[in-house]
């Protein structure tokens, strides 16, 4: 048994799907956020795996940029969650429905 790129891709696909499921069933804003991070990680894994397969370093660079963007996203997102929590005393996204049409 030799580890091929396909294995990594399947693992990434599984992690991504779990992330999707997490976003869809959880109602805690923080956990939804974490699920999104999980999806980003899964994508990064494919980047690096494919980078290895193709012998191109660009995949790793892309993964680095994804990390940076994810980090900024988390800082701002968490700041928003905290700000929402300060006014609503809840991190339940179902209660944030002011924009209901």
């Amino acid at each position: 048994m030799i580890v091929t790129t396909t294995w990594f891709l399947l693992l990434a696909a599984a992690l991504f799907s779990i992330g999707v499921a997490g976003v869809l069933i959880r109602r805690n804003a923080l956990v939804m956020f974490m699920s999104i991070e999980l999806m980003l990680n899964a994508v990064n894994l494919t980047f690096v795996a494919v980078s290895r397969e193709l012998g191109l370093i660009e995949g790793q660079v892309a993964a680095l940029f994804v990390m940076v963007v994810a980090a900024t996203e988390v800082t701002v997102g968490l700041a928003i969650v905290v700000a929402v929590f300060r006014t609503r005393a809840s991190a339940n996204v179902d209660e944030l429905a002011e924009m209901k049409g």
Partner: protein
Amino acid sequence: MAETIVFIIFAAVALVGAVWMVMAPNPVHSAIGLLAVMFSIAVHYVILDAHLIAAVQVIIYAGAVMTLFVFVIMLIGVDTADAYGPQVPIQRAMTAAVAAGFFAAIALAGRVVWITGSAAFGRPNLSGTVEAVADELFGTWMVVFLSTIMLLTIAAMGTIALAYFHEDSTEDEASA
């Protein structure tokens, strides 16, 4: 062989951690689950010879991002009652279907676009050494790199703005 064993162990850890993250009623446990996933992915990066990415993965995701998550969870308290609550009746089923669909779609796409199966896994001349990534990053992607610096700075300012200037405190700040 060693690689295969390590891969299987950490793939299992990643999957269990991911499922735990989604299912755990307690957000702190969710965070720990995600931490496990991230650490496992870092190990996978090492298998893939992307050492720098592995280290950065641990430092950024495990060290900074997840710490922030844990902090925020501690700050706003853990309300486990929120975890599932009333759901649309078929939501679970729908979620499972969508997730399965995604998995199928990605796997299929991977099979189509990516007909690998080659026993020669990867190319031996490429490794994620710091120098190789740095050459690429500070050469071809210099402008992108600089824009991420801008992005980080702006995000930091935005976060500070969100944290400091909220409605209750504006009057205090004005009078102070």
